[in-house]
């Protein structure tokens, strides 16, 4: 007798789509990483520059899930391009499940979006992430009853430590296998709103991936994108009649208010503990002061005074540079280098390549290590501390008002702040600005009036002993910046852009973070600078040999002297064409030798700050904005910088100011 082998039929793999939705700073990426591991691809949403991350996860033997990490959003009524894309994804892709990720300790503020997602009719799981931070505040949520009240699965997680991820995976399976009995809570809107939503929903003919009630509620809030979507139906005329006397703003306010009330009533029942320990604490008060349009200014002044002027200018560019230059290079290295290469080359012209006035070691390496290194190190330490505290986004908010006057929004703080690190990279980052007009204005201002890190540090060092000089320099440069921006705003046509930025919590800087960031930036900077400085030394040596260097110095000496500076400052401006930091290092040398001081030093500092972009920045401007604009900017800025120097000299003389 033969035995029949029993085989079990394998169930086919189901392929499902799960979207992660939530506002910024709630740990969406951490959840995404925890669920997907390393199987991630990133691509732009078609027609936009918004990145979407796609991942895959497998749960058990039967479920292959495509996971999509949508851009951060606060509401289904989008303000930013990222929110617009996030909403489009939800409305078009019809996900099998949405994970609404929230910050557990800010649940009350985030529940209104949960309600909006529930209203779409799609299956939602509420994920309370950062749950450890909620517990650390002495708070607690009654998860079981919360789930009962809202009528959807609720899962608490601490994604960065992997807590709750297994439970979340189980709930995802429960939902995609249709085993969860949803009884989703609907916000009880007023009769006025309910009646309007129902009457509009009745006239929507097409089938949509989301509920008609959601479409109708967005129409009565005058959502242009949704209205255009409905236009294609042919029922828009009827809907327009229903909306003809509607106060859209009133509708939107009422709907938001009623969602908030629903959220508050749930939280009153289901949360416990005292959050007053941290709410309204000193960090919140300080944060509010930092972005205040009056109090924020002296706070910024203090940051710049102690962080940049005292630490970078006096300590870095003063104490440290003096020590390294005098005790190491002048006392030991330079004499030894001169001796060694004199022995090798004698009075041969190759002696000048390595030693002497313009040698690789005596000029290039000395500039990089004795002058630039201590200044850049202190600058990066100060910058990393400021960055680690969370002050930078607050600075963006503070400057938003001022930036509106020059045709930019607070978002431009990003490339302009980066410009204080490196103008070349900052020019590339201008592509993140929303309009061409903003990109052009920001690129021009970066080329004109934003000194890069080493240049700024050396300039601060040059003027550290003379606060009056520093004040006039800062006033002149910022005045030129605002004036140029103001003129650009009125000469270049276009509309102003909005600005929206999430503020991370303020925190005390961590030594490890500051050390890591400073160390990495220093390595990056020196890998870039030392070869360039060596090449610059070689180019200058060749220029000296051929006479081209002296010819060019002679040519540039005319505008230099016309602007009120001594002829000896001319080489520094020639160096500045290649690298601005090399140029200011030249000024530093002259100041130390006593050749450049007083009014002449101030004018040199102003002119070199406003000087043409370095070769690298010029090349990037050419690539980003086009040949005509790059050349036009350089051709304008070169004489303009010297004109400002000239006018400043005239003004100082007229007012009898002697520094």
């Amino acid at each position, binding site marked *: 007798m033969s035995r029949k082998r029993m085989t079990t039929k394998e169930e086919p793999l189901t392929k499902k789509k799960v979207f992660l939705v939530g506002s*910024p*700073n709630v*740990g*969406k*990426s*951490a959840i*995404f*990483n*925890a669920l997907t591991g390393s199987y*991630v*691809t*990133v*691509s732009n949403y078609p027609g936009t520059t918004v*990145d979407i*991350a796609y991942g895959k996860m497998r749960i058990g033997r039967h479920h292959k899930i495509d996971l999509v990490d949508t851009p*951060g959003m606060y509401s289904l009524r989008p303000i930013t391009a*990222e929110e617009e894309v996030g909403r489009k994804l939800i409305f078009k892709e019809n996900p099998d499940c949405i994970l609404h990720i929230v910050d557990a300790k800010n649940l009350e503020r985030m529940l209104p979006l949960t309600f909006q997602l529930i209203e779409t009719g799609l299956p939602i799981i509420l994920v309370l992430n950062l749950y450890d931070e909620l517990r650390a505040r002495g708070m607690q949520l009654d998860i079981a009853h919360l789930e009962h009240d809202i009528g959807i699965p609720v899962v608490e997680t601490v*994604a*960065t*430590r*992997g807590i709750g991820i297994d439970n979340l995976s189980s709930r995802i399976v429960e939902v995609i296998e249709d085993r969860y009995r949803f009884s989703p809570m609907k916000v009880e809107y007023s009769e006025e709103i309910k009646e309007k939503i129902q009457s509009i929903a009745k006239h929507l003919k097409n089938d949509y991936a989301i509920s008609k009630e959601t479409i109708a509620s967005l129409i009565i809030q005058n959502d242009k994108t949704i209205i255009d979507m409905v236009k294609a139906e042919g029922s828009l005329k009827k809907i327009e009649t229903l909306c003809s006397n509607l106060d859209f703003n009133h509708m939107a306010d009422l709907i938001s208010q009623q969602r908030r009330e629903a959220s508050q009533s749930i939280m009153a029942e289901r949360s416990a503990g005292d959050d007053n320990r941290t709410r309204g604490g000193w960090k919140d008060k300080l944060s509010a002061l930092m972005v205040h349009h009056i109090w924020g200014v002296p706070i910024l002044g203090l940051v710049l005074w102690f962080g940049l002027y005292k630490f970078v200018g006096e300590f870095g560019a003063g104490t440290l540079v003096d020590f390294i230059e005098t005790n190491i290079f002048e006392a030991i290295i330079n004499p030894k280098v001169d001796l060694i290469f004199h022995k090798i080359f004698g009075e041969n012209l190759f002696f000048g390549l390595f030693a002497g006035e313009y040698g690789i070691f005596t000029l290039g390496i000395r500039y990089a290590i004795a002058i630039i290194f201590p200044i850049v190190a202190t600058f990066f330490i100060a910058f990393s501390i400021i*960055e*680690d505290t*969370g002050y*930078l*986004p607050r600075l*963006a908010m503070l400057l938003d008002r001022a930036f509106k006057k020059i045709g930019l929004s607070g*978002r431009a703080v*990003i*490339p302009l*702040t*980066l410009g204080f*690190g490196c103008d070349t*990279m900052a020019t*590339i*980052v201008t*592509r*993140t600005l929303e309009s061409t007009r903003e990109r052009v204005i920001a690129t021009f201002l970066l080329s004109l009036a934003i000194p890069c890190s080493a240049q700024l540090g050396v300039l601060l060092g040059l003027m550290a002993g003379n606060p009056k000089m520093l004040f006039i320099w800062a006033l002149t440069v910022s005045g030129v910046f605002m004036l140029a921006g103001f003129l650009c705003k009125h000469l270049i046509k276009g509309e102003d852009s909005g600005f929206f*930025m*999430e*503020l*991370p919590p303020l925190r005390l800087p961590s030594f*490890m973070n500051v050390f*890591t*960031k400073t*160390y*990495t*930036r220093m*390595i*990056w900077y020196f890998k*870039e600078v030392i070869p360039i400085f060596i090449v610059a030394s070689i180019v200058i040596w060749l220029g000296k040999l051929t006479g081209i260097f002296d010819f060019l110095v002679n040519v540039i000496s005319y505008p230099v002297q016309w602007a009120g500076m001594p002829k000896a400052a001319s080489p520094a401006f020639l160096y500045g064409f290649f690298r601005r930091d090399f140029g200011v290092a030249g000024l530093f040398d002259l100041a130390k030798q006593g050749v450049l001081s007083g009014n002449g030093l101030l004018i040199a500092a102003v002119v070199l700050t406003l000087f043409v972009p370095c070769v690298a920045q010029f*090349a*990037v401007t050419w*690539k980003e904005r086009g040949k005509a604009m790059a050349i036009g900017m350089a051709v304008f800025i070169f004489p303009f910088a010297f004109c400002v120097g000239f006018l400043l000299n005239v003004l100082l003389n007229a007012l009898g100011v002697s520094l």
Partner: protein
Amino acid sequence: MRCALCSHEFNEDSAKRSCSACFKIGKCEMIKCPKCGYEIPPEPEWIKKVKRLFHRGRRDGDL
């Protein structure tokens, strides 16, 4: 990772994509926020090893 400037959360893969148009691609060793372009210095390997030695390492997704 979380951007220190715009607070955008992202993973390193999406950051590497945003470098594709830069002339310094792969050479600057910085991680660039794909949303705002802000450059974030990555933690060097030797520091990660020192932290692990002292049991003070941090998991992915946490800056």
